[in-house]
């Protein structure tokens, strides 16, 4: 595989952790501050997209077994990367893992780096409940389920645009990305993105070696992706990444909402399972 360049950049996260916000920021940044949330030119692909897979491989995605998909995915993205001149950003919710061939499903050979977005699981509960139409207790079960699968296929695959993804529990997911040794990974906390948007986004751009953007350009892109702006765009144009139209994708966009949303028992349920990594990321008991 001579001449392979490492040009894939993974935007990895547990769902509802700020990934889409950062993708929209990149779009605004690369597009001189302009943004149409339903027509993204950057980071418009998710790793689990069946149509992307079909376009590159010419294989019928819905006629493949999960094991085959996991084996083919790294080949599809390697093949794709080799046709690209510039960096390509790809969103991924899958936990970092290996196929039966002991290949990482994310192809390291063409990967430049990854950004991994982390959010306090106490706040995730309400956000997941809203996005996936779950009760709060169901959302907590999702966070705590070590074998959780996203876009579960079962018997109703025909409208699923994405392959089933191994998400694991919140801790399982985060740990899988912490364990990556194949390429550099920068971890970004959603709470820091909210508190110090400019500094954190600039740090991310430096990590990506995108140093030619001026502070004004970065500021303009941040402004274009302000939470109120995104809420307004969703209201007028809709947002094609929503699972249905019965809720707002851009819900609250704040940290600490869990204090009004969760009972003491629900907080305990989350903390007891994720205590270790919550401490590591600064989500302390008194936070």
């Amino acid at each position, binding site marked *: 595989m001579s001449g392979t360049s490492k040009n894939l950049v993974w935007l990895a996260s547990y769902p509802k952790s700020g990934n889409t916000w950062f993708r929209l920021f990149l779009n605004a940044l690369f597009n001189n501050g302009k943004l149409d949330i339903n027509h993204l030119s950057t980071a418009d692909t998710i790793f689990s997209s069946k*149509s992307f897979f079909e*376009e*590159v491989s010419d*294989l*019928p995605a819905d*006629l493949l*077994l999960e094991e085959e998909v996991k084996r083919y995915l790294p080949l599809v993205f390697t093949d794709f990367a080799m046709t690209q001149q510039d960096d390509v950003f790809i969103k991924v919710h899958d936990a970092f893992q290996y196929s039966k061939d002991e290949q990482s499903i994310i192809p390291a050979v063409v990967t430049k780096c990854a950004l991994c977005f982390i959010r306090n699981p106490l706040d995730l509960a309400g956000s997941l409940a809203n996005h996936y139409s779950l009760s709060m207790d169901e959302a907590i079960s999702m966070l705590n389920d070590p074998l959780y699968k996203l876009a579960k296929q079962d018997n109703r*695959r*025909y409208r699923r645009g994405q392959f089933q993804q191994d998400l694991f529990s919140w801790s399982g997911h985060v740990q899988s990305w912490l364990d990556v040794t194949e390429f550099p990974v920068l971890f970004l906390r959603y709470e820091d993105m909210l508190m110090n948007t400019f500094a954190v986004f600039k740090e991310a751009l430096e990590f990506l070696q995108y140093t030619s953007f001026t502070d004004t350009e970065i500021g303009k892109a941040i402004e274009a992706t302000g939470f109120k702006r995104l809420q307004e765009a969703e209201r007028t144009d809709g947002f094609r990444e929503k699972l249905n139209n019965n809720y707002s994708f851009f819900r609250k966009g704040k940290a600490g909402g869990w204090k009004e949303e969760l009972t003491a028992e629900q907080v305990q349920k989350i903390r007891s399972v994720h205590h270790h990594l919550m401490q590591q990321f600064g989500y302390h008991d008194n936070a």
Partner: protein
Amino acid sequence: MYQYWGFGLHISSEIEFPELFPFTFEVPDVVIRLGETPKSLPGDEVTQTINAYIKPAEYLLTMRDIGRYHVINGNQIIVEQIGNDNKSLRVFLLSNAMAAVLYQRNMIPLHASGVLYKEGVVLFSGHSRSGKSTIATSLKMKGYSVFSDDVCVLKEVDGKILAMPSYPMLKLWEDSFAKTGLSMEEAKETVRPGLAKYAHFFHHSFITDAIPVRKIFLLNTDNPLGTAEIVKPGFMEAFTEIQKNSYRPSQLNAMGKRKLFFSLASGLVNAASVYMVRRNEKADSLEQITKEIITILS
């Protein structure tokens, strides 16, 4: 040798295909044989995908643990089975290897299902998961006869674009049966072991004629606001949209058939009434859309 009609072709095969339509003929267009295949295709003009080599008149596909398919000159498929999963062996022959046969013969497959209508056919064309099979099945439940599922083959005869069916089998996810009201009693077999997609045969009502396309419904368009509607597009919009529905586009491109596809697609858009179905893929609007389609057809 077994003898079948499929994709507009007379097919002789050493492998039995319950999916295809039994047919008698003297001279086959295509012969399917079991035998040894090469592991790769050399040459400058070869395009490689993750598991296939594509040349204008030669195609080699490897499906691990299933089989290798070598398609030559549009009239031969050599199949080397790996393992013992016969169903899966047939699935990828009918999807990818047959597409290669068609392109090698200058026959253009279109991603479309269809039902019979006014001595012709109405096509539902869109990418995978756009609802082609479910809409065709819903119409079947309202008394229409299914013409083809997933793929139709286009050909030009005396300046007219005609469509031919692929083979008499609908591939339906388990939940499509409940949605359309089709009984699962008639679809006991999964398409592949371990996949909740079922085969529903319609050999008894299958026709092998090339017939004119009366109407086409293009199913691709996403509408983020979620309302479903059917609109009549202008020529350019319809032409642009139908181009997204080529079948196995890597083969189409690597075999240099894009120009031919353009010509047939533009002829099709000119000759048939074209409708665009705009809906939110995530909203469950198929029932509503099916009703509107029936209104347009009646």
